[in-house]
């Protein structure tokens, strides 16, 4: 999965992967026979290597430090179980299909809108991840300085996004964008997993947001996560029919936290899990802040023809349970 610098390229890096049409968050999945399984690591710690090469302004050691911090940020999410180990520096480059998880720089001048990308090699007989690599495109300037460097992209921020993919998360749509000269630019976002990166010099994505935490918890959550948090589920409908591909956001007015989800079938069904118990405000919007292929497969029809709509009631989310049968009725534009 890719992290674009300005605009969404229409290429899919991971053609073998699909978005899993179940659960709360967009997760990566893979076909296993006739089934689709969530892509997740099954044994920990995950062992990874770093390519022993730096770029202008960032040594291999500084790069490794930043990547390790990003891994640790994901591992620190409460009530989840993930861990990783840096094994050592290697000469191998990412994407070499050598059976090792390699993270490093790669020159990809043809991908001039892709800052970084993550690939997987999966055993299609059982869905096991055999290898995952992450590359950072050397055609962009990089930095690991504590406060960020103007005009250079922050390694740790981009690593946090890519490691989100590495752990099985797909993209979040919690952000707003604008089109400038045919290129899409992010105005604001509230998820590290938003597909379009902040501008160079911005280090805001070094920390996870509520949406990211809900997503990783959905994959690797412990029993405590399931016991302490709750979910909402229901449908988005237009003239009585389901709306597919709607972006539904739960806003907790008490904490200000935002967690997003999608309607993932023709019935317009959605589930948003990992919510703090208590009142939530639900808002449904069309998926118009990024290229649809950043979120779904090409053959997934997304309905963009409806107005942004708030659900008519405050939804009380129970601890360890779900608020169900919510119907958000939207109207055509």
């Amino acid at each position: 999965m890719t992290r674009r610098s300005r605009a969404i390229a229409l290429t899919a890096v991971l053609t073998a992967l699909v978005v899993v049409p179940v659960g709360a968050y967009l997760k990566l999945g893979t076909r296993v026979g006739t089934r689709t399984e969530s892509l997740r690591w099954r044994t920990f710690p995950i062992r990874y290597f770093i390519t022993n090469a730096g770029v202008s302004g960032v040594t291999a050691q500084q790069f490794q430090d930043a990547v390790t911090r990003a891994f640790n940020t994901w591992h620190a999410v409460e009530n989840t179980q993930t861990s990783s180990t840096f094994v050592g520096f290697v000469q191998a480059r990412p994407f070499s299909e050598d059976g090792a998880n390699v993270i490093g720089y790669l020159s990809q001048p043809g991908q001039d809108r892709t800052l970084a990308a993550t690939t997987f090699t999966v055993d299609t007989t059982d869905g096991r991840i055999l290898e995952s690599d992450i590359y950072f495109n050397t055609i962009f300037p990089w930095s690991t300085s504590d406060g960020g460097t103007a005009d250079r992209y922050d390694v740790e921020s981009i690593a946090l996004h890519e490691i989100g993919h590495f752990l099985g998360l797909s993209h979040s749509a919690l952000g707003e964008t604008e089109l400038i000269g045919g290129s899409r630019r992010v105005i604001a976002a509230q998820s590290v997993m938003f597909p379009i990166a902040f501008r160079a010099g911005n280090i805001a994505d070094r920390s996870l947001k509520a949406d990211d935490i809900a997503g990783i918890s959905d994959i690797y959550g412990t029993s405590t996560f399931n016991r302490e948090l709750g979910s909402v589920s229901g449908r988005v409908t237009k003239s009585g029919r389901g709306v597919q591909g709607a972006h539904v956001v739960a806003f907790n007015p008490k904490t200000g936290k935002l967690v997003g989800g999608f309607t993932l079938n023709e019935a317009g069904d959605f589930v948003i899990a990992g919510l703090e118990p208590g009142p939530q405000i639900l808002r449904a919007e069309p998926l118009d802040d990024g290229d649809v292929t950043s979120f779904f497969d090409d053959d997934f029809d997304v309905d963009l023809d409806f107005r942004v709509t708030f659900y008519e009631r405050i939804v009380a989310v129970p601890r360890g349970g779900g608020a169900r049968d919510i119907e958000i009725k939207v109207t055509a534009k």
Partner: protein
Amino acid sequence: MQRALVAAVLAIVAGAGAPAFAQSVAVPRPKTVEISGGVTLVGGYDFGASNAELTPNAGTSPPFVEFKTTNRLKPGLGLQGRIGFVITPALAVEGGVRFTRPTYEVRVTDDFEGAPNTTIEETLSQYVFDGALVWHITGARFAGGSGVPFLYGGAGYLRELHEENAFVEEGIEYHAGGGIKWWFGQSGRIGIRAEGGISIRDGGFDFKDGKRMVPVAGASVIYSF
């Protein structure tokens, strides 16, 4: 059986001394039990603004606001029941429960993508189980002694349930105030009680830590025996 006998004896003793309304006995009488039930009104509370904020691309600018909300708990009308024991003419102890169904209201405005402003709600179930000391100001009796002003103060347990009992929030409640009790008839057993005061809540449904204060008022019918 023993309990019925005691009650009968108390009634006889009380009845024996009960004068006509204009000459009513000074109340409340010590060693009596007061049961009351009626309505209560608990004031509302503003939780304030809470905005759905995104992190701006321009890192130093203020947060990007996706939409704004203003939040308040509207006043709730409900029921209350109390039972008290008059220790001396001036002092009583009591316990009770107040139940109200306030509405939590959110006004949603200024949506970045143009969603119409709207107001959405949920109904809470709010319980307060409390105990209190009541001080009758016997020196200020009125209506020939059948009415008496009082002051009260106490604490209790606050339990708030969100809609469909989906989620419970708990806290502590402290209250203080004043009112009047006024008994009717020669027996002095039945009367009314009206009160008003403040309720300080720590915990329960709130947007921030700390205490909040709401006005409370109530009116009840009292039966004394």
